[in-house]
């Protein structure tokens, strides 16, 4: 591929299918490609539709018509239960539970926690990935492999000691206590960013070194902008991951002030041994909790595809 080694300036190109050479041109390929996409979209959407249908069904009547494609006895009750607008008695009467839920506060807690984790984790992981990919030092790969092993550490090893540590730090039932273990790094993020830093055109960095730029400046002004779309992708995926995290926040954040939305929605799952979930409330909760992240994807998603570095990364 040495024909394409012209050094280009880093610039942003607005992508559109007409001028985007990565897009297929042949009409036959286009037809089959889009057909395949359509099939994937349908298989993906059907169960989601089923959740929507269930979220608007009456929990008590639902299994009277288990195969109905439309909501059974259309009701906003489940949504009200999720938003905490129903009294415990109403909730129980509708097949929900008598526990209260403070939807707005839990959502806010989740937003703060997931943002906190994502911002710090990605910043620190990017620094580490830079050291593992673009700096040369003895023992680099060995240390990286050691970090990589963290990916394989089973949860049962970490959960109790980390809980005790957070307790010793006096951070139980605080948002910082929930976020702390994930804020410094994850082997996943380091590994991911390292692979992209490998692709950075070294001549650009070379030139910066000759110009006398510090490593911090090269990292923050050259390397990070070059992999920005990938950082955004990673940030979105990590945000979603921590948004959905359950066990750890369940143990650490038990007060109203520190309860995350996933934990709050736990009251819609089966409360007694071998009981039934509040199906409608559970689905309504899952969908409502997913809305903020979906919006986030639509906003930041543009950055994943919208700004494409022409050939800074090759």
């Amino acid at each position, binding site marked *: 591929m040495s024909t394409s080694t012209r050094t280009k300036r880093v610039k942003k190109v607005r992508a559109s299918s007409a001028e985007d050479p990565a897009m297929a041109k042949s009409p036959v390929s286009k037809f089959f490609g889009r057909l*395949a996409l359509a099939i994937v979209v349908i298989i993906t959407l059907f169960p989601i539709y089923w959740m929507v249908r269930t979220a608007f069904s009456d929990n008590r009547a639902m299994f009277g018509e288990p195969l109905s494609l439309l909501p059974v006895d259309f009701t906003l009750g489940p949504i009200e239960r999720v938003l905490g607008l129903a009294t415990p008695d109403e909730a129980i009467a509708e097949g929900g539970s008598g526990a209260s839920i403070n939807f707005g506060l839990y959502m806010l807690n989740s937003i703060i926690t997931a943002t906190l984790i994502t911002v710090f984790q990605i910043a620190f992981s990017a620094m580490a990935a830079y050291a593992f990919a673009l700096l040369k030092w003895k023992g680099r790969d060995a240390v990286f492999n050691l970090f990589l092993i*963290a990916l394989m550490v089973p949860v049962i090893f970490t959960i*109790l*000691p980390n809980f005790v540590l957070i307790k010793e730090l006096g951070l139980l039932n605080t948002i910082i206590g929930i976020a702390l273990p994930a804020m410094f790094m994850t082997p996943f993020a380091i590994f991911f960013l390292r692979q992209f830093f490998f692709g950075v055109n070294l001549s650009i960095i070379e030139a910066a*070194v000759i110009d006398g730029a510090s490593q911090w400046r090269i990292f923050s002004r050259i390397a990070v902008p070059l992999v920005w779309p990938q950082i955004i992708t*990673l940030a979105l995926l990590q945000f979603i991951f921590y948004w959905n995290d359950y066990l750890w926040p369940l143990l650490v954040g038990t007060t109203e002030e520190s309860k995350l939305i996933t934990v709050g929605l736990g009251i819609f799952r089966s409360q007694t041994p071998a009981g039934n979930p509040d199906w409608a409330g559970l689905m309504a909760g899952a969908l409502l909790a997913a809305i903020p992240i979906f919006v986030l994807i639509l906003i930041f998603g543009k950055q994943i595809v919208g700004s494409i570095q022409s050939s800074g990364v090759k």
Partner: protein
Amino acid sequence: MAAKVSRDNQIVPAMLFLIPASIGFLAFFLWPTIRGIYLSFTDYNLLRDPTFIGFQNYIDIFNDAVFWRSMAVTFQYVFINVGLQTVIALALAVLMHRFTRSMIIRGVVVLPYLIANVIVALVWFWLADYSLGLINAVIDGIGLNKIGFFGSEAWAMPTIAFVNVWRHVGYTALLLFAGLQAIPRDVYEAAEVDGAGEFRVFRSVTLPLLRPILAFVLVVTVVGSFQIFDTIAVTTGGGPVDATRAINFYIFERAFERFDFGYASALAVILMILLATIALIQNRLLRANESDMER
């Protein structure tokens, strides 16, 4: 072109860059792991002080038929899950890369990942129910025999694997898509000038240039799917007859239901060693530490 970064040893800036990540690594990963390895040599029920018993847990595991069966079903799961997921995700990423720029499609594809996996498992548990599930209603409608997706030994693990493919395929596709975007556009221009067909473009342009990311994705998904837990916990609970008692589920059962934390730790150590071995082999085979993109 062979421009090389200065050969100077950059250990000082490297260490500075690694400070924050190292704090997290030492406090939240390395220390708990060392402690866990120690506990694997003890008899420990969580509520009393551990007593050192040497290799006894490991010897017991070697003679534990449930352990060997759980390894077998775990491998079955990983094989189906990773195989299916990687192929579909790769196809999907290429489709998104070559055939559409629609943000909506990208959003839709990742939708299942937005739903917590416990909920996803419950939704499919319902859709695949023998009597009340839509899938069996369709199967019955076209005149075939209904299938006990979660309840029969033959189907349970493949069903669980499929459910997780459904949830993670869009996620994996986005990771691969990020890799595709790092491929310079001019190589596609060149391929087009050469008149290469869709499959040829994929084989000789896309795939080789994607290799570092593909390697990353494979390592991460293999390691991740060995740790399958939630879907099993909310659906089959390890049954029927051990058919879905994957190793990580067995570890949890031993640790928190049977209060045999020492034994569970030994199982966890074995799993860790196995995963580390697999990951290092994968890394080597896939040459993940270098890029085909010339530097």
